[in-house]
């Protein structure tokens, strides 16, 4: 019965007509205003904002700063400053990573200063981690101190004071 119902419906709306209407709407769909010059132009424009990506093949020697998110899969020899910074598996940073949220799956040789820190199982951290909130997954390698002091030395967060764990780390 269901089979008949299905065939009935298109028959009501006069199947050949709808088919004819659909084909022309489908055909002009692949309109590509691209063949202007190079495909780079449109591709570059489409991604002018959002996450910055340091690919596996890229090495930066120097400072990298952003007021948006950064994902690093390559190598940075210098400080990194961003909002949300992700250091991917295989990536390497030699310097300080500052951010609101830092996720580490690669290697950092230096320091992390962030409100929220996540060290995944593949993380390799040599140096101190200054944080307010930290998550460490099994397998992470840490050679350094973990200090829940993010924002303490900072004037602005002192005035904006959220309840801080005052010297919690010492009894530990």
């Amino acid at each position, binding site marked *: 019965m269901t089979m008949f119902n299905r065939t009935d419906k298109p028959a009501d709306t006069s199947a050949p007509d709808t088919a004819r209407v659909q084909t022309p709407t489908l*055909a002009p769909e*692949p309109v*590509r205003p*691209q*063949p202007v*010059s*190079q*495909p*780079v*132009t449109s591709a*570059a*424009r489409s*991604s*002018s*904002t*959002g*996450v*910055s*990506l*340091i*690919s*596996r*093949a*890229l*090495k*930066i*020697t*120097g*400072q*990298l*700063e*952003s*007021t*948006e998110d*950064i994902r690093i899969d*390559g190598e940075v*020899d*210098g400080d990194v400053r961003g909002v949300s910074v992700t250091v991917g598996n295989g990536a390497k940073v030699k310097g300080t990573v500052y951010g609101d949220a830092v996720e580490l799956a690669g290697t950092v040789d230096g320091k992390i200063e962030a409100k929220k820190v996540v060290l995944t199982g593949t993380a390799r951290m040599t140096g101190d981690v200054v944080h307010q909130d930290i998550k460490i997954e099994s397998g992470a390698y840490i050679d350094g101190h973990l200090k829940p002091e993010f924002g303490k030395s900072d004037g602005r967060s002192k005035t904006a004071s959220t309840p801080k764990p005052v010297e919690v780390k010492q009894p530990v």
Partner: protein
Amino acid sequence: MSTFSFRTRPKASEEKSLAISHLSKAVTVNGVLDTDGEVRIHGHVQGRVNAERIVIAAGGSVEGDVVATDAFIEGRLNGRIFALNVTLESSAEITGRVFHNTITVARGARIDARMPWRPPNYFETLDQLPETRE
């Protein structure tokens, strides 16, 4: 559909799929960018850029030397380009020098630069950039 089959040109440039790095407009880099892939700059770079292919997008700017096989400039560059193939789009603003083998300049590009032609082998030996003779 057959009309769209002449998409050979984009294909030719896409065939080598390079690792693409992307610096958004919120990014500032102070230093050297070094890659054998592609780098797309929407932000600001102060320093040298070595890449197989560089794109300085509209709004992006580089202050320094750029060494690449392909350079595609829509933004601003204050420095020198050493690239086999150079494309300067209409929104480009160039100050400095453009060493090239082939070059395309769109109408409207603002260029305050010398643009010396060089043979292909010149670009193969660019480990040491020539001194600036300003």
